[in-house]
């Protein structure tokens, strides 16, 4: 006893929570040790006696000091009770016996009658603990509720936290099945306890408490069966909060206004017994007119929707209110302007239709739905003939008719019939368009309904089997065709809108599917109709090519674009259609004379090919039965195959028109991109991984085919039928076979490729890029087994094929190399191999700059995609030899006076790109080469300048050729790495000094700027000080012609200005000490480059533009005091710069002038 008293006292005196927790644990342990003997529990309960006896000292009229004493008592008494509650919390929940629990409930329950000031918080906590005791009996729950209800008015005086404690207690009680059944047994439908609770909690405003209170209310309505009177009382309690909002608070509590709305909504939708109150209440709120804001309106509509969806037995709960709801809502859509509320209204109307239809498991009496749709029909039918309301009325009808399959099957015929009648006497082109839009929407929704037929009730599918269809099929001849033929010749934009709808509608019509009585799916329209539709639209597709430029006045391609979309939709279902389209297009193309085509013809050809590729290859066709036997068996690759065949057939169009020929290869490239994207969208980007271990040699398989197979024409399929039909549209095998087919085509074109007519550089580039795309999609193993590395140099050609000797053939080599994995390149590093020979051959470089570009690209890939291997390996030695060859070549060539600057440029280009490939993967051997390059650049010969200027290439390998998608090895921080070894050591050497050769310092400076220009700011930010000095020197010192050529000097200035722009964007404060030099330097650059010089025109223009950009950025970054002294001369200079002959420069000048105008 004494022990408990002592602990209680310590608890009361303590302020620290951990200390208090410790004490309650001790007390709990003591009780547990005694196995809850009556004496110990009694002693424990009595330990707070000394604080309890003073409870009656705070009557009215007492002296002030007594009041204070009483207040002091309240605090200690509350704490003392807290001690008991805390002990209960710490106590083993199974240890107290039922009688002890009951007695404690009695004790704490009594507090709600006697001690409203001190007892409530602790008692609430204690009661919650007691509720969780094992020996808590359901009847005790009733007692708890009765006791707590005695708090009455004083409930709202409690703190929010205390109330929260009590709400949680109530919620646990009403959610406890045993307690709630006991409550029902005792109170029945009168629910007396519920009324007490309603009274108790009637003025709650705390959001956290409200969240729980709404849960309790929902529970009361769903689990108990309150009489209508009690239901009304409960309804009043929560509807008073509607519409609920939340004041924004500085201390967020983790509850949003949306949570509260949802909680209230759950009360409304809790049970159909609320319906008689809820619907009238909500409708009345809605009908307040303009007084309702959009947010509130949406809240009301969502609540109505929730009620409709949740209430059971719609006949009794929803049907009686439908008229009223419809009466209010129809105007929301008919005359509404706010999209949110229109959408929410549509949702409600759809919810009604779905509710009346029934659920997945149970369908309601069909008359319910019919009556509802009839009601809507009656009101909206006439609006369809009024152009102002056609769209809205159509939307309403569409919503209710297509909400369920049953509604659709019963009403779509009459719906379409009304539209058809109106289409016969349209009021205006827009009216026709709106009506067509409606028909199209019905068709679109039908596709959705059809797709989801298996998800719903089995009856739904049954309904679809027996649906009437003739009115849909006849849409083509009755509706679409007459409108199309009537308007096709008109060019009015409104009429064109109508035609667009017809085109889209035709697409939707052909893709409609139907179920026959056996449940088999087939196309709704017959083969001949599909064929007719396809032909009709194909005429528009090929029209630009059939007309001459004078006849084709139409500027607006949007109708043609919609026709293209429609045709794509069509051929995805009606697979024979694509063949017809290709046939027609091919004929039209061949009809034209391509020997000397006009710009117009070329453009028309380009667009037509691009569209054809899109129509057939941008999606994977679906397999649907048709009433006519298809011309070829279905295959997901069928369209792609047919398209490739057409391209092979068309190429070359003529020996003269190289552009037209190149367009054919461009569209091959486009179709590979389209189909690859379609495969990735359908099967996922990782779909090929499952085939990664294939060691098939496709090329060897291709060799088995007869030699003429590639060029066979007419109707033949490249893919044998047995392969083509071995996988379905959902099989990722499609992706693999697509690549196989593409490789076959690429190989075929490669074999015939040449650098003479009909081939052109453009055509070769497109072919090479297609090859790159195909090759890079293959995994390493397949690349190895097909031996693509070897083919990169033999270009799939055999001894029978015509060799391609021109340097341009290197383009094709690049195409294959570009897509290879490093692992598949091993063969190329054989000593003395074909690759090494190609790279180290300088004889073919002089002919054209392209030759140097191509070799540079091959070199870059070669040195970049070296698969990691031991340093002593032969392969590594070969790689090193290649790199060494080029650096040494440059080192020696720079001194030679025989080599003109043009050729030397080509050599440097190859050398730098080859080394750059190795730099990108941080190849250590490069460090040995850097000093050689430095030396070459510093060489006094004029060619050294070229080396210095090209140094930037090392940190800017060609991203077209080397990128991650093409499996290039690009290290994340390679620029940082290269900068360290390439540039850092040069800063000292580049600083001008009396003892230094001015030419060498100038070269070093060019080298630094050329590299830094290509690096991000973070790479060189540590060397800003030294760098800025170089920049300033580059801007302000005009070099002697003997030191630096004019071209190099300009390039250096451009680099310096570009770097300055970069620094200004990242760390402008670094420029503070150099403002004078920068401003005068930039001004000088502008003035000097304002002279006209035809050969350097572009460089000079760039100089002017950049210098103005730098000047213009300064006032935005620096305070006026730093710039004031430069303001006048700069503004004068900028004013005259506003008259620059080049427009872009004038723009820069104006913007700089506006910025400087603020510096006064």
């Amino acid at each position: 006893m004494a022990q408990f008293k002592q602990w209680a006292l310590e608890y009361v005196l303590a302020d620290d929570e951990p200390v208090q927790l410790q004490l309650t644990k001790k007390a709990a342990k003591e009780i547990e040790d005694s196995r809850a003997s009556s004496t110990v529990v009694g002693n424990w309960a009595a330990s707070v006696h000394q604080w309890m006896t003073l409870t009656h000292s705070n009557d009215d009229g007492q002296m002030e000091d007594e009041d204070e004493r009483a207040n002091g008592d309240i605090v200690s008494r509350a704490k003392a009770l807290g001690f008991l509650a805390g002990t209960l919390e710490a106590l083993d929940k199974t240890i107290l016996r039922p009688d002890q629990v009951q007695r404690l409930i009695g004790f704490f329950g009594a507090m709600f009658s006697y001690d409203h000031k001190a007892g409530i918080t602790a008692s609430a906590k204690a009661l919650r603990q007691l509720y969780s005791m094992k020996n808590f009996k359901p009847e005790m729950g009733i007692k708890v509720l009765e006791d707590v209800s005695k708090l009455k008015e004083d409930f709202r005086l409690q703190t929010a936290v205390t109330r929260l404690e009590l709400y949680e207690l109530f919620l646990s009680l009403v959610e406890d099945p045993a307690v709630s059944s006991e409550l029902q047994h005792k109170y029945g439908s009168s629910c007396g306890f519920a009324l007490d609770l309603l009274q108790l909690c009637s003025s709650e405003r705390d959001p956290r408490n409200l969240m729980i209170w709404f849960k309790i209310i929902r529970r009361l309505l769903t689990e108990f069966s309150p009489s209508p009177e009690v239901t009304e009382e409960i309804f009043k309690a929560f509807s008073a909060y509607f519409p609920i909002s939340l004041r924004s608070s500085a201390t967020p509590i983790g509850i949003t206004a949306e949570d509260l709305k949802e909680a209230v909504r759950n009360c409304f939708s809790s049970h159909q017994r609320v319906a008689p109150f809820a619907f009238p209440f909500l409708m009345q709120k809605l009908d307040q007119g303009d007084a309702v804001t959009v947010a509130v309106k949406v809240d009301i509509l969502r609540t109505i929707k929730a009620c409709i969806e949740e209430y059971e037995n719609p006949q009794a709960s929803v049907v009686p209110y439908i008229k009223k709801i419809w009466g209010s809502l129809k105007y929301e859509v008919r005359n509404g302007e706010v999209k949110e509320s229109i959408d929410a209204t549509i949702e409600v109307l759809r919810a009604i239709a779905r509710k009346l239809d029934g659920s997945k498991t149970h369908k309601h009496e069909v008359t319910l739905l019919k009556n509802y749709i009839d009601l809507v029909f009656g009101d909206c039918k006439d609006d369809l003939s009024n152009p102002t309301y056609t769209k809205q009325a159509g939307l309403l009808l569409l919503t209710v008719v297509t909400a369920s399959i049953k509604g659709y099957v019963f009403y779509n015929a009459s719906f379409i019939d009304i539209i058809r009648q109106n289409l016969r006497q349209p009021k205006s082109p827009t009216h026709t368009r709106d009506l067509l839009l409606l028909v199209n929407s019905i068709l679109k929704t039908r596709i959705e309904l059809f797709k989801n037929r298996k998800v719903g009730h089995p009856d739904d599918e049954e309904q679809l089997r027996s649906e009437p269809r003739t009115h849909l099929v006849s849409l083509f001849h009755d509706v679409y065709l007459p409108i199309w033929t009537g308007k096709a010749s008109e060019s009015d934009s409104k009429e064109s809108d109508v035609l667009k709808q017809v085109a889209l509608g035709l697409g939707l019509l052909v893709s409609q599917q139907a179920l026959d009585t056996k449940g088999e799916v087939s196309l709704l329209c017959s083969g001949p109709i599909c064929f007719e539709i396809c032909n009709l639209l194909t005429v528009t597709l090929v029209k630009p090519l059939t007309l001459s430029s004078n006849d084709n006045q139409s500027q607006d391609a949007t109708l043609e674009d919609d026709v293209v979309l429609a045709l794509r939709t069509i051929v995805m279902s009606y697979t024979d259609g694509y063949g017809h389209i290709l046939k027609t297009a091919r004929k039209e193309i061949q009809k034209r004379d391509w020997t000397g085509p006009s710009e117009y013809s070329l453009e028309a050809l380009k667009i037509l090919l691009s569209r054809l590729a899109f129509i057939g290859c941008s999606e994977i066709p679906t397999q649907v039965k048709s009433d006519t036997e298809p011309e070829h068996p279905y295959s997901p690759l069928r369209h792609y195959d047919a398209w490739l065949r057409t391209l092979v057939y068309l190429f070359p169009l003529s020996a003269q028109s190289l552009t037209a020929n190149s367009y054919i290869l461009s569209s091959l490239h486009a179709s590979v991109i389209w189909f690859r994207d379609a495969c990735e969208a359908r099967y996922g980007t990782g779909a090929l991984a499952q085939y990664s271990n294939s060691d098939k040699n496709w090329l060897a398989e291709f060799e088995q085919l007869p030699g003429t197979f590639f060029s066979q024409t007419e109707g033949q399929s490249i893919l044998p039928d047995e392969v083509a039909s071995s996988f379905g549209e959902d099989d990722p095998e499609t992706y693999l076979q697509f690549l196989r087919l593409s490789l076959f085509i690429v190989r075929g074109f490669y074999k015939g490729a040449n650098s003479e007519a009909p081939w052109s550089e453009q055509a070769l580039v497109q072919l090479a890029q297609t090859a790159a795309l195909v090759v890079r999609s293959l995994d390493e193993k397949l690349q190895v087994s097909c031996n693509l590395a070897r083919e990169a140099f033999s270009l799939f050609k055999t001894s029978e094929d015509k060799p391609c000797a021109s340097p341009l053939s290197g383009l094709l080599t690049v195409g294959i190399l570009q897509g290879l994995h490093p692992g598949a390149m091993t063969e190329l590093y054989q000593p003395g191999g074909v690759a090494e020979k190609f790279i180290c051959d300088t004889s073919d470089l002089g002919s054209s700059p392209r030759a140097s570009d191509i070799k540079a690209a091959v070199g870059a890939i070669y040195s970049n995609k070296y698969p990691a291997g031991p340093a002593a390996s032969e392969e590594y030695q070969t790689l090193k030899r290649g790199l060494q060859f080029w650096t040494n070549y440059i080192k020696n060539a720079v001194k030679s006076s025989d080599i003109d600057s043009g050729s030397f440029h080509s050599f440097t280009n190859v050398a730098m790109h080859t080394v750059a490939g190795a730099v990108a993967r941080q190849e250590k051997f490069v460090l040995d080469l850097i000093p050689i390059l430095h030396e070459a650049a510093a060489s006094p010969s004029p060619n050294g300048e070229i080396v210095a200027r090209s140094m930037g290439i090392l940190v800017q390998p060609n991203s077209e050729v080397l990128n991650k998608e093409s499996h290039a090895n690009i290290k994340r921080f390679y620029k940082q790495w290269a900068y360290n070894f390439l540039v850092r050591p040069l800063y000292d050497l580049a600083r001008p000094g009396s003892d230094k050769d001015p030419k060498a310092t100038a070269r070093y400076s060019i080298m630094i700027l050329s590299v830094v220009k290509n690096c991000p700011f973070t790479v060189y930010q540590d060397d800003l000080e030294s760098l800025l000095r170089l920049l300033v020197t580059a801007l302000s010192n005009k070099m002697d012609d003997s030191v630096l050529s004019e071209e190099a000097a300009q390039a250096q200035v451009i680099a310096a200005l570009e770097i300055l722009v970069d620094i200004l964007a990242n760390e402008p404060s670094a420029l503070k000490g150099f403002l004078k030099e920068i401003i005068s330097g930039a001004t000088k650059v502008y003035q000097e480059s304002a002279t006209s010089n035809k050969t350097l025109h572009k460089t000079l223009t760039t100089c002017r533009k950049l210098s103005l950009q730098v000047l213009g950025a300064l006032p935005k970054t620096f305070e006026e005091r730093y710039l004031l002294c430069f303001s006048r001369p700069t503004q004068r200079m900028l004013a005259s710069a506003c008259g620059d002959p080049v427009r872009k420069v004038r723009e820069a000048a104006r913007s700089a002038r506006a910025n400087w105008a603020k510096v006064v």
Partner: protein
Amino acid sequence: MREVDNANPSILNVSQLPSRSRKVTTPRQGPDSKCDNIVYSKRPWLCGSSSSEDEDLEEEYGEDPVDAQDIYDLISPISDPEHPHTLGQLSVVQLPDIHLTPPPAERRGDKLVTVTVDLTPTVNHCSLATVIGLAVRYRLEQTLPPNYRFDVRMKDGSHAQDDQVNKQLGDKERVAAALENDTLKGMLDKMLETCV
């Protein structure tokens, strides 16, 4: 608030205004044009030094002396003091009413160039015509080089008091004095906010 002089002016759509950019053909935007810039690229091969030749850049950096369209582009985005529209949209500024002497083709060096702009107020009693004229003049002064002279006038017969307005706008002293006036200057700055 003062009643506006013309409560319902006719307004042109931004796309209807004369513009240089629209003279250049825009790329096709069909559903099939996704790969156009890859497969019909103007720059087929981006590798090495010689490929930096860029046709677009060539076009962009070509010499193109200041012409009437340039002047139009400078002054048409000025906001009207009464309506939330630009002078271009309200047809106060019209391209055919802008003249440069000597014309761009005959210009040599830093010779004096005179820009004549005739403004058409939306109603012929527009009380803000002077302010609009001043704004146009101010904008031109701010954005054109010192060898340009400006003559901003009301189009003949477009304003009831065009003589007086023209006289005010032509008087350098009065223009300079007007720009010293803070209220007027504030108004001009507000009108020029829409110019980029």
